[in-house]
């Protein structure tokens, strides 16, 4: 296990060079073998401001996840009425009034870039808030621990239960817990597939065994991963599987707000009796409540660590104790390394939210946001592609006229059928022909159904006297509704080597 290098001088804190967590890890390792069994963690329930926020975020994010596919959104014609739908079969992505085609996948890329920049900015400012509050791994783990508490009680009861021999009481609690976990996991996997199909119809098809095979496969897959990740792997996912804890080191600096043990105030630590005074000692009474509350099983007093997800539960745990021992709250708090160091040195703490790093992230975020909004606002509703025939490049007709064939692809990205006029903008005297359609001179009318691409074969014929060069510049101009598109092409006549 790698450890973020402790930037503060460990000896200054008086905690000793070897951390308590390291000791705990060592003692959990039987004989220093090649493989390390997971040391079970029994997070204790805490009450307080951060716990309340965490509950609220959990409810909101879960609600968003489960409810979103069920939101209906009116779209004309036969288009799906699901607000958020990734329609792989129809090759469309619907998001309320936004609709994207596969060719517009750069918007998805932009969204991912935005998400990354937002993550960088938030991390640079406030530490790993994403990890502590909104990451699905955290949200579902929190929910699973909540269920665990319902069946097995809080920390001490759970530890007793695990240590106790098997009994009916232990069995039903374990079975009940795993059953509810599986239920939640199934609901998670089940909700996922609704994003990819019409939700009400899929719900019916799913239970009548008429659903698509991919639906069952992905439901099973996500049921399994949810159950395993949130139920049994938990902090191991963050520590061993997730790259973010490694990357975050590049975003954090000494001015980032992080869950911090204020060693300047806490040390030297030690047990405290009510009769004793507080002179000559720190506020930390070494009660280990911050350790028991931690879902990652670490001791925050060892400084910033890779395992810390910045959830703030140890803050709530410590504040409760501080209240009891009648010391000010905030021995553990969202604070910066710089501030703690300054206070330890007897200087006033300075907080710098605006730093070159945060300015850069904010500007980049704003720039990409503007680009995205501009892109969506000016998204063309008409897309035109012209493919020249390559075999043959041209055809000579009986009277010496030359004909070129083109495949004109018109994408109507509106929700209504449109009739477009397709004009060949090239040498004078051209005559268009489109099998199955009426053409007049250089123009042909093409009706494209709503939200579809239509591909038409267009043949342009030039009389012999118009063949002034082997390669004549030309273009197709398509107009319809308020949209216009132009695609350059050429008319090849082979005039130079004509008989």
């Amino acid at each position, binding site marked *: *296990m*790698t*450890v973020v*290098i*402790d930037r503060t001088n*460990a000896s200054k804190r008086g905690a000793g*060079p*070897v*951390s308590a967590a*390291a*000791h705990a*890890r*060592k003692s959990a*390792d039987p004989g*220093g*073998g*090649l*493989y*390390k*069994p*997971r040391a079970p963690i029994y997070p204790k329930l805490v009450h307080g401001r951060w716990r309340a926020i965490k509950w609220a975020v959990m409810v909101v994010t879960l609600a968003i996840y489960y409810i979103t596919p069920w939101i209906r959104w009116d779209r004309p014609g036969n288009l799906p009425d699901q607000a958020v739908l990734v329609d792989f079969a129809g090759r469309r992505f619907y998001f309320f009034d936004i609709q994207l085609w596969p060719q517009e996948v750069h918007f998805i890329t932009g969204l991912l870039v935005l998400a990354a920049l937002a993550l960088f900015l938030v991390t640079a400012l406030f530490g790993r808030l994403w990890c502590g509050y909104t990451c699905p791994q955290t949200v579902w783990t929190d929910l699973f621990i909540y269920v665990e508490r319902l069946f097995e009680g809080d920390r001490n009861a759970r530890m007793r239960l695990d240590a106790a021999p098997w009994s009916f009481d232990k069995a039903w609690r374990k079975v009940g817990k795993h059953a509810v976990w599986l239920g939640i996991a199934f609901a998670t996997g089940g909700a996922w597939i609704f994003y990819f199909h019409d939700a009400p119809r899929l719900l019916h098809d799913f239970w009548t065994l008429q659903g698509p095979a991919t639906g069952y496969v992905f439901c099973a897959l996500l049921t399994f991963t949810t159950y395993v990740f949130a139920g049994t*792997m938990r902090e*191991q996912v963050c520590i*061993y599987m997730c790259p973010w804890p490694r990357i975050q080191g590049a975003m954090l600096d000494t001015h980032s707000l992080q869950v911090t043990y204020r060693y300047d105030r806490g040390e030297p630590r030690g047990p405290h009796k009510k009769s004793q005074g507080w002179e000559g000692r720190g506020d930390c009474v070494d009660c280990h409540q911050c350790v028991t509350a931690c879902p990652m099983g670490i001791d925050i007093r060892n400084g910033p660590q890779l395992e810390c997800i910045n959830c703030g539960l140890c803050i709530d745990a410590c504040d409760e104790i501080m209240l009891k021992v009648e010391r000010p709250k905030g021995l553990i708090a969202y604070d910066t390394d710089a501030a703690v160091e300054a206070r330890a040195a007897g200087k006033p703490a300075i907080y710098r939210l605006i730093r070159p790093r945060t300015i850069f992230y904010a500007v980049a975020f704003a720039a990409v946001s503007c680009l995205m909004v501009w892109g969506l606002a000016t998204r063309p509703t008409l897309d035109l592609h012209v493919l020249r*025939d*390559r*075999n*043959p490049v041209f*055809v*000579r*007709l*009986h*009277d*010496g006229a030359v*004909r070129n*064939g083109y495949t004109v692809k018109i994408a109507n990205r509106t929700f209504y059928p449109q009739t477009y006029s397709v004009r060949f903008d090239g040498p004078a005297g051209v005559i268009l*022909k*489109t*099998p*199955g359609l009426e053409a007049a001179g250089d123009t042909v009318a093409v*009706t494209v159904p709503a939200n579809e691409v*239509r*591909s038409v*074969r267009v*043949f342009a*014929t030039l009389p012999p006297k118009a063949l002034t060069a082997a390669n004549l510049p030309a273009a197709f101009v398509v107009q319809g509704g308020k949209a216009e598109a132009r695609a350059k092409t050429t008319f090849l006549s082979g005039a130079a080597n004509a*008989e």
Partner: protein
Amino acid sequence: MANRETDEVTGVDTTGHEWDGIRELDNPLPRWWLYMFWAGIAAAVVYWVLMPAWPGVSGYTRGVLSQSDRADVAVALKDLQTIRGAQAAKLKNATLEQIEADPELQAYAQAVGQSVFGDNCATCHGVGGVGAKGYANLRDDVWLWGGSLEQIHHTIQVGIRSDNPQSRMSQMPAFGRDQMLTSAQINDLTEYVVALSGRTADAAAVRRAAPIYQEQCSACHAADGTGDQAQGAPNLTDQEWLYGSARADIQGQIWNGRGGVMPSWQSRFDPETLKALAVYIHSNAGGQ
């Protein structure tokens, strides 16, 4: 040399290797990692039992599931027919004109036609359909047997000089080989045909050949040389030549009276495929 020591901060041993002052902690792997390794091996054994896996002297282990890609393809092809069923039925019931006028049917016919053309027709007519010397160009507006949808459809069905009793049939005599005309007469006729197509020719020869043309050729190629699609007689006044436009080519054709053969496709394709092919060829020729 490995110089293991205990790291101060973590209390974990290092591997003893050092790179520019950077040392690596020798933390144990998590136990579940080991489980994944065993699970991978177990999965491989299960796979051997279920799926074809081990080669033998004569064949291979089939596996309990008897999985076979060949069988899967057969099933997939059957499924494809089911998927295409509705479109194919529409194609079958629609007239050729209806198919060409309906955007959806036309697109379907184009796709079917293109693949069938590539597999069956391209050998002679070329992938792009422009043909070659002796093989008709299907992309221009010159048709030996007619370029309307119906005529193309019929030609594909019955073929040309094929073994189909309904076959399009015509035979140009081998005027030279069968000694119907003399070499001199054929030379004069060649000049006449060159003149028909609007090129400069030996005026005296043309004058001499005029009565021979009217006597021997006009029945099929028409008095003015414009040909007759009902008999598959090419138009001699245009700039399209099946067997070449040079004098030697024309002379050779009068001498030998060549005529190509196209098979009848009626028995090889179902009616909807024939229709799709006709629509594909017709529309690619600009739709006459």
